[in-house]
């Protein structure tokens, strides 16, 4: 266990540096720079010379390796710079928005679990029954409906017509319900189908038959053996799709005016706020790394076979 963690952490530095380098290249090679935004050319009279002078001063005319070098120097000093648009330290800005996004993502995951686990289990246990058909229909609809549209429908239903749920902002628990349900519904369809097929596979395994032969109760067999054995593929998909989940959060954050990190970065991209974009990529890379490590470690708990094999290898 310790060795795995150690190896992982030594890998992570190279991984982060590589990600930051590639993203640095992509951001700088994209057309446009923040100079016009900083000078507010849309409203203030600016001459071409002033634009050029600003570009020179900010180092955007330097060759890319020089720009990356100076960025890297700041990076190893843990100086992530200040946002071009607000003048605030990037990490402080991102860190203050991160809890909101974490809350939203966790809430959506909870909703997803509440939908996917019962529906996936029931449609596996009662395969071919009406509940299986219903879950299939829901999954197809869920996968086909864009989340912003679903969000608008939910706002109309529960914010305007039949209820008084808050439709925007971040004001305590009530304001989390609609965004979390929207996002949770949107992502649950994949997991319902995945859990169903994984469960079906487990339920037909030898160990289930032998458990029955030993006279274990159906509940025990289901919860402790079949479900546990079915989780690794679901968790793998979750780990891999976490990036796109965070991407989905952006749409929801804009729709529900939820002050999270996704909305922040969309604005940053529009304004070419390089330090903020780089900071976001760094944080996301770390989050994805942590989640993937947790996923790897969870296999060992969910699938005892792995632990046994490791022990054998040590002998």
């Amino acid at each position, binding site marked *: 266990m310790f060795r795995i963690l150690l190896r992982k952490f030594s890998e992570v530095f190279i991984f982060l540096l590589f990600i930051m380098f590639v993203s640095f290249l992509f951001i700088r090679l994209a*057309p*446009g*720079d923040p100079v*016009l935004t*900083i*000078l*507010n*050319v*849309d*409203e*203030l*009279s*600016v*001459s*071409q*010379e*002033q634009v050029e002078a600003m570009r020179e001063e900010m180092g955007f005319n330097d060759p890319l390796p020089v720009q990356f070098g100076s960025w890297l120097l700041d990076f190893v000093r843990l100086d992530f710079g200040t946002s071009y*648009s*607000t*003048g*605030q330290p990037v990490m402080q*800005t991102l860190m*203050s*928005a991160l809890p909101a996004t974490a809350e939203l993502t966790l809430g959506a995951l*909870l909703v997803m679990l*509440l939908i996917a*686990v*019962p529906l996936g*289990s*029931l449609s596996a*246990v009662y395969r071919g029954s009406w509940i299986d058909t219903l879950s299939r229909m829901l999954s197809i609809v869920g996968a086909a409906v864009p989340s*912003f549209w679903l969000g*608008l429908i939910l*706002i*109309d239903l529960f*914010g*305007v017509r039949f209820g*008084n*749920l808050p*439709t*925007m*902002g971040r*004001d*305590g*628990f*009530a304001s989390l*319900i609609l965004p979390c349900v929207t996002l949770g519904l949107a992502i649950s369809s994949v997991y319902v189908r995945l859990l169903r097929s994984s469960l079906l596979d487990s339920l037909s395994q030898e160990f289930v038959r032998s458990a029955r032969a030993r006279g274990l*109760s*159906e*509940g025990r067999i*289901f*919860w402790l053996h079949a479900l546990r054995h079915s989780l690794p593929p679901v968790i793998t998909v979750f780990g891999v799709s976490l990036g796109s989940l965070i991407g989905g959060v952006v749409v929801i954050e*804009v*729709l529900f*005016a*939820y*002050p999270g990190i996704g*909305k*922040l970065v969309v604005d940053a991209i*529009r304004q070419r706020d390089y330090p903020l974009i780089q900071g976001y990529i760094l944080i996301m890379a770390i989050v994805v790394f942590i989640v993937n490590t947790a996923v790897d470690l969870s296999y060992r708990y969910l699938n005892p076979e792995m632990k046994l094999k490791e022990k054998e290898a040590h002998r």
Partner: protein
Amino acid sequence: MNKKMFPLLASLVLGAGLLSACGSSNPETAAQSPDSAATAKNVHFLYNFATSSLDPHVDSSYVPLRAGITETLVRLDEENLTVAPWLAESWDSEDGQHWTIDLRDDVTFQNGKPMTGDAVKASLERALTESVAIQNALKIDTIEADGDKLSITTTQPFPEFASELVNPNTSIIDVSEPDIVNKPIGTGPFSLTSFTPGSKLEVSRYDGYWDGASPLDTVTFSFNEDANARSLALKSGQVDIVYRPEVESLESLKAIDGMVVESASTFRVHQLTMNMERESIKDLNVRKALDALIDRQGIVDTILLGHAEAAIGPFLPSLPFAPKYDNKATESGSEAAVKHLEAAGYKSENGVMAKDGKPLKLTLLTYSARADLPLIAQVFQSDAKQIGIDVEIRQIDTPEEYMASNRDWDIATYSNLTAPRGDAGYYLNATYHPTGALNFSGSEDPELTAIIDELNLTVAPEKRAVLAEQAANYVHDNVLNSFVLHPSTIVAYNGKKVKNWVSSLSEYYMITNKLDVM
């Protein structure tokens, strides 16, 4: 019990338990809100941009000023569209370079401190240090304060100086406060109580406000960037005033009893920028033909659903320096366009407009950041096709960047603010002066440049108006650019609750000390 039923029941119990946990705290919060609303006079305003910083000198969404927290030395008089006194009583300059400003002596900051000349000096100096844009805009060399008098020298003769002080980023704040980014202290009718970056701010009445304290106790100023969600928030009664609701939702909003929908033309113009470096566009007759082809009223009616004003020139007709164009009504429509093209030597051959056997092909740039522009481009493309001009639409990402560094296009849809602070100097310099950063036409017209240069040295407002009008007429006569429409700002509010709302043309002044509830 059937053994198979166990997982079913277990899942249901688990799900139901968690769902009821979610629901239980909801009525609690719902019950709290009407209670607090009954005790205080509150207006909830919903704005279409979000900001994550309230630094009045940096925040380009101008929220501190718009929410009534800060004020500037001078403001735009919304009726006469001229620069009017605000925190400054009067200002004067003989040469446009040495300015004296007399401040009001009855103004206090929201922390009770008086607004002195030294405080204003410190505030302006902070704006200059924090924002390069303001440094460029104000061109201030030195500031001296003496009691309630300020003496400011600009680095060059700069007659627009006073109107540049309308800019919300020159707001006067108490710079001795520790947390300007999250809690600026200004002189406005409302002081900040709380701020959630990217989401909303709460402000409460400042009783010591110099122009008469507001009748309201508090105002909530929220942000939502999704137009549909804004309309729905108004329908649900969660907010009272919505800035720029979804245009398609207006009919359903109007159908609600007591709902008021207002629409006011803005200082913005959607235009067709001509690339004067292209051979075909260099010909005045071709530019006249393209101008005639634009179906302005049709675009206003179909694309903006009537919420815009067809434009003849760059300036909103109500501005004092906007030309009248009375005797300059030009013919428009495809027939007029064909006539101009024939004058330029083009002939229609097999339904294709061509000159010396070369068909007229144009590349039209557009971008989606302003949703109307690609639609305007499509209408233009189809109208041009009718008379045999082949228009290829090219979608670009950042128009300013693209147009400045690529010259492989003929025309471009673009949107410009033409007199954001009640003066024509900004637009004319940026767009038509050879050194202007928005001079995408590449226009280098000595006659026009001379007019702008003279404008840049003229202090008297009346004389400036004459010169600005002259420049606008020159642009019109030579079709240096073609103007399509002035889009309107739409505001919808609950007329049964909100009193004295005024939709500001400049879009600067939103939460004022006059705003009230029934």
